């Protein structure tokens, strides 16, 4: 890395901060660091600690060792369905919504007319809160008056789209994808605008078809965007909460890890140690992705 040497030299350069500069730095850099430490990283560590204890939030905290985890993996009926649903969520967002968003972005980026209209419309669901999305899902999918059943005309024997535990997760996934597609689209749209057009021209001169150009030239150039989209997809899939909570509080087929955490610590049960153990499982999965992502970033940083 020949680049680092001059950089370091520059860093050591003549610039010395005055006392006033240092005061400004201390306050304005210290404040955000303090906030993040106290309200994000501290609680994260505390959650890990609490996951090894029994606590109802009021009485004494007693050490439970791995008891919570053992209970969670073997004896908590909602756990594995929740894991399954989180994985389904990941698969739906990653394999359906993301490619679809990319396709829409590619089409719009070709410079069709009315692109502003398409762009705004497709992005519209993203600005809605998931709670609203959850409610709209009910409007369409509810058994007795839902629009979908009205459309299908299933008068005698209406399908209970949201009540049937074999069915409802798919419907909710559809709603989640509806929202995620627009998000992915706007990211790719922004990314595509920054791809150097001469690259495409060069490919065209070399006789590449439009499809080849896209997959072999444009998409590789978008690698950083792909990484970000991947991270966002994972984070969204793991964090999913609002929409099922708005529909039926995450019960009856709509269990999610995030819902189990919330139920255990906020609900009447108040099993904080146990809820934390679920949260730690969630954390470990997320950390896997976060670390991968940060390593990527770090490499990019070195190249810069």
């Amino acid at each position: 890395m020949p680049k680092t040497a001059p950089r370091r030299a520059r860093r050591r350069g003549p610039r010395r901060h005055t006392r006033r500069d240092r005061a400004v730095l201390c306050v304005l850099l210290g404040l955000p660091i303090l906030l993040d430490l106290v309200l994000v990283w501290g609680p994260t560590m505390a959650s890990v600690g609490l996951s090894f204890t029994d606590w109802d939030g009021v009485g004494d905290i007693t050490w439970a060792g791995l008891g919570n985890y053992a209970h969670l993996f073997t004896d908590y009926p909602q756990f594995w369905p929740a894991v399954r649903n989180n994985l389904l969520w990941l698969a739906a967002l990653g394999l359906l919504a993301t490619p679809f968003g990319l396709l829409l972005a590619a089409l719009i980026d070709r410079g069709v007319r009315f692109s502003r209209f398409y762009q705004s419309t497709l992005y519209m669901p993203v600005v809605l809160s998931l709670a609203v999305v959850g409610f709209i899902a009910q409007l369409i999918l509810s058994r007795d008056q839902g629009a979908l059943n009205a459309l299908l005309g299933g008068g005698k024997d209406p399908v209970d789209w949201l009540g049937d535990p074999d069915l409802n997760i798919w419907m909710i996934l559809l709603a989640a994808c509806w929202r995620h597609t627009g998000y992915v689209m706007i990211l790719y749209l922004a990314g595509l605008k920054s791809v150097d057009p001469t690259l495409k021209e060069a490919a065209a001169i070399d006789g590449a078809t439009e499809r080849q150009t896209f997959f072999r030239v444009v998409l590789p150039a978008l690698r950083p965007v792909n990484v970000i989209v991947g991270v966002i997809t994972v984070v969204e899939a793991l964090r999913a909460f609002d929409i099922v909570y708005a529909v039926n509080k995450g019960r009856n087929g709509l269990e999610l890890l995030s819902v189990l955490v919330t139920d255990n610590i906020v609900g009447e049960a108040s099993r904080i140690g146990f809820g934390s153990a679920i949260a730690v499982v969630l954390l470990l999965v997320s950390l896997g992705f976060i670390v991968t992502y940060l390593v990527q970033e770090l490499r990019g940083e070195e190249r810069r």
Partner: protein
Amino acid sequence: MTVPAVRAAHPVRPAGPSGGAPGRRRGGRGGRDGRDGRRGGRWGVHAFLLAVSLAFLAPLLLAVYASLRPYEETARDGYFSLPSRLSFDYYRQAFTDSGMGRYFLNTLLIAVPGVLITLFLASFTAFAVARLRLRGSLLLLMFFTAGNLLPQQVIVTPLYVLFTKVPLPYWLSDSLTLYDSLWAVLLVQIAFQLGFCVFVLANFMRTLPREILEAAVVDGAGVWTRYRHVTLPLCRPALAALGTLQFTWMYNDFLWGLVFLSDGDKLPVTSALNNLRGQFFTDYNLLAAGSVIVALPTIVVFLLLQRHFIAGLTLGANKG
């Protein structure tokens, strides 16, 4: 996490000050495609995009339509029926009976200061990370970025405990603790969103020409001046895009309000939507009206700032 992606895509761009030829691609309208069959393909693309757009809009339109009709009517005829009467009654009802006005105020009390403080703190941090060549700035960047990627549920319990332990005087919080006060939600929002904003702004600031800053240093400008008067004005597009995103997120937040507030009157508007749901009977049309009311501000903000928003995301595309 949006903008950095875009920024990072830049190495492929030529380094020239004109930064490629954006004007050219704009005018290019598929000019590089083969001439034959282009028209047919074009219509296909339009038909496809239009169909998808309508499919995306349909649920929203349905909600608006339902909200304008009385419940008895849709209960009898279903949502796909011609209206005998349209009215704004439900909107009035949502505001008067369930006090949406107050919930809106709660949301604004959180989201407006939240966005401003977050952007201020994050922009300074980003400035320090990206422009001051401090030691450990990369670590600092990761500290914030990774913090934003943690699942919210992981930090909920300890925060809940912490907030119930922090006393506040009565004039700050009528619950006498940080728990069950808007401060709690505001603080968490700021702390949690800082990471994202620092990340985006730091990436953005890296693209600003160094010379301007060097010149300021030569002129003897202190850290604050270099931040406030040299760097910040150049960041306006990125700040606009971030502001839009942040407002949407803070406005739409559901979990924090649910967990850290127990007094129903303090709920932000998104969490309060559930209040329109009855214990035994839910008037879906009333809920539809509530949803439209809740959704409207973010849609309006997005449509108004759309140009800045996209510009902020694509920014750097013509910077050296």
